């Protein structure tokens, strides 16, 4: 048991690091939390440049075959690359959904000419993809979606609304799950397409969040016409295709926990700097216990990630423990940020970066934490998933399983 690279891994790490040093700048010191250093437009431009560069070097998708622009490498090599890249000041993230979910779906269900047309530009960062599944009435229950696609000759006419679409406003294409038959049970009447996001029949509106940000969009379709050749999988097989997409929505296996907001280290730092009624917060036993409780969860997640990486390193499938990340980290963030604000006493309400300790990291993350408990699967859905997929417990009773979709209760 150790934390060392195998000789091959070490060699790969050296190679990657050399390339990164030649092509990017290392990150500076403490950069603060949650604060965009560039405008989105700037970041997007820089990200596209960086993506082109790393794709050219074979680092964009290390596990993809060489024929499609990958490197034919191993999952652990991808992890090593990610770890090393994280030390450099490069903008990423814009391509994760496209390359992580959409293009793999296209690779499974698309025609050869689709692959030829779309894979390379996506890999090079020239075209960005988004994923259009969730709807206002279909959140946790994605298969309850209502966006209609109706056949009209060799085309489909699409009307409806998607929601919670990350990156819709800067995406060029999207994969879109639609209902093509409301007369069969809900999972059976779905069909998948890919669409041009720049079509004037597609309208994107940002969703303003509690914390003032707008990480997601609503997307409206009004008589959007899509060729039948843009269909992915058979008519009515959309759910099966979507499961392929979601299967690729793996937990990122990266450099370990944290990074998303203040954690036990920041709580320690805050406690050292803060006076309570009875003296410095760091001498207060309750504060100390909270630091320890937070540490244990954070480190537990970090070492769980190491276990997953070990499986990858040994060429094995990661175990089910990889599924616990967000159900631990999201409530932990909500807890630790609220606690940090409590330590600041009445001034805990101040959210200006210059008004509160640690550039108001606790306050800013506190306002985001409720979103983290929901986005990408609510706490409740994640527990269901662990119970069902990891522990093998039965699914919830599905009253709508055998009903034609149009007859399923909806409350409207």
């Amino acid at each position, binding site marked *: 048991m150790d934390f060392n690279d195998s000789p091959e891994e070490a060699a790969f790490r050296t190679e990657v690091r050399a390339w990164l040093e030649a092509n990017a700048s290392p990150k500076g010191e403490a950069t603060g939390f949650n604060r965009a250093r560039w405008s989105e437009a700037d970041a997007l431009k820089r990200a596209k440049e960086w993506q082109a560069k790393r794709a050219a070097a074979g680092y964009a998708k290390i596990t993809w075959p060489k024929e499609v622009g990958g490197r034919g490498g191993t999952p652990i090599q991808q992890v090593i690359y990610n770890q090393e890249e994280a030390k450099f000041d490069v903008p990423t993230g814009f391509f994760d959904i496209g390359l992580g979910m959409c293009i793999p779906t296209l690779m499974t269900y698309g025609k050869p000419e689709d692959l030829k047309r779309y894979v390379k530009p996506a890999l090079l960062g020239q075209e960005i993809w988004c994923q259009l599944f969730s709807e206002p009435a279909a959140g946790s229950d994605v298969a309850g979606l209502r966006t209609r696609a109706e056949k009209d000759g060799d085309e489909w006419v699409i009307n409806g609304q998607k929601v919670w679409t990350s990156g819709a406003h800067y995406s060029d294409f999207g994969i879109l799950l639609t209902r093509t038959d409301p007369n069969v049970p809900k999972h059976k009447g779905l069909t998948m397409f890919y669409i041009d996001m720049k079509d004037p029949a597609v309208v994107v509106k940002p969703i303003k969040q*509690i914390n003032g940000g707008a990480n997601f969009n609503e997307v409206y379709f009004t008589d959007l016409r899509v060729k039948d050749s843009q269909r992915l999988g058979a008519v009515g097989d959309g759910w099966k295709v979507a499961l392929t997409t979601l299967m690729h929505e793996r937990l990122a296996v990266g450099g370990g926990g944290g990074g998303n907001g203040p954690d036990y280290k920041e709580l320690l730092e805050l406690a050292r700097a*803060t006076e309570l009624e009875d003296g410095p917060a760091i001498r207060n036993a309750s504060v100390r216990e909270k630091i320890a409780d937070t540490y244990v969860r954070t480190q537990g997640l970090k070492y769980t990630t190491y276990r997953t990486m070990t499986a990858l390193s040994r060429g094995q499938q990661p175990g089910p423990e990889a599924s616990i990340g967000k159900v631990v980290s999201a409530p932990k963030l909500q807890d630790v940020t*609220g606690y940090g604000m409590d330590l600041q006493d009445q*001034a805990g309400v101040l959210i200006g970066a210059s*008004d509160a300790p640690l550039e108001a990291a606790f306050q800013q993350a506190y306002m985001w934490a409720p979103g983290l408990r*929901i986005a990408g699967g609510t706490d409740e859905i994640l527990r269901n998933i662990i119970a069902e997929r990891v522990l093998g417990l039965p699914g919830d009773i599905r009253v709508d399983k055998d009903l034609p979709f149009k007859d*399923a209760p909806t409350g409207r």
Partner: protein
Amino acid sequence: MNFDFSDDQKELREQAQRFLRDRCTPKAVRNILEGGDTYDRTLWKGVVEMGWTATVIPEEFGGLGLGYLELCVIAEELGRVVAPIPFASSVYLATEAILLAGSAEQKAKYLPKLASGELVGTFAMAEGAGAATPRTVRTTLKSGKLDGTKVPVADGNVADFAIVLARTSDDGERSLTLAIVDLKGPGVTRKAVTTIDPTRDQAEIAFAGAPAEALGGAGDGWSLTRQIQDRAAVLVAFEQVGGASACLEMAKDYALNRYAFGRQIASFQAIKHKLADMYVNNEIARSNAYYGAWALSTGSAELPEAAAGARVSATQAYDYASKENIQTHGGMGFTWELDCQLYFRRARTDGLSLGPARAWKERLVQQLERKNAA
């Protein structure tokens, strides 16, 4: 056993609910949230006209001379609608401070105008992150002049005057003194500060030789502050209970009307048990608040214990209810568009305004130690 509000008080509640349903809609709260003003002036005017600012002020000072139970009833209803007005600062804190410690002249000067809404007061204690105590307060009161900076001061940009906790010596628990200062007078610079809850104004107030007079005896500041906070804690607890109840109602309505997997989401145990926990917390908080109301209204020696219990319990309940209300709403709950955020913000502001639950637990145990002297 008569541990509930009277029929008259329940009628007052209904009256307050009717009034606020019209005058303090979510839309009106949003107007303040989105920067329409520092507070809702129309609502404030209405509240003054209803006599709520005058509730416990004696008739000789232009008040209604009612009891604290009536004020508790009003507080719960204001909390239920997240009223964006300086009521807590002016009525629970400034008015109480003057009632408690004011000289005859000070009472005569301030109380009638507080009752009539002509003056808005606030209480300035914090000086940035951490607890304001006899060890940490740096603002000084010397020869009738205040120097130092207080931040955050709730409703500090709105208030006409502030009661300021200031240092007058280095005599331990007796180092501090309360001072009344005119916020429109010389030597006072105010600026708005950004907070998690824009529906409540918060200011940074710098004093540079601002003329001020003592409220209560020199060296009594810390003891008076705690007494004032005990009173305010009970009243804010009712606001918190009102807010927490509104969260439960919102979450329940949404869960009953939202369908997933062909069922009301209210039929899933994860949601049912969440709402049951909310209900339980809220009832525990309400019962503790009632005890605080009893202690406050009867001038009981148990007020410090009762106030601390009420505050801890109400803060826990509102915190849980406001977070899990968002969670019950799912993605929609996190949008700007829905009203969950109003309660999420206010729960935190209320929970920090008089100091966090953590500090009140300590105050509570001090009382228990005193009572059960070993």
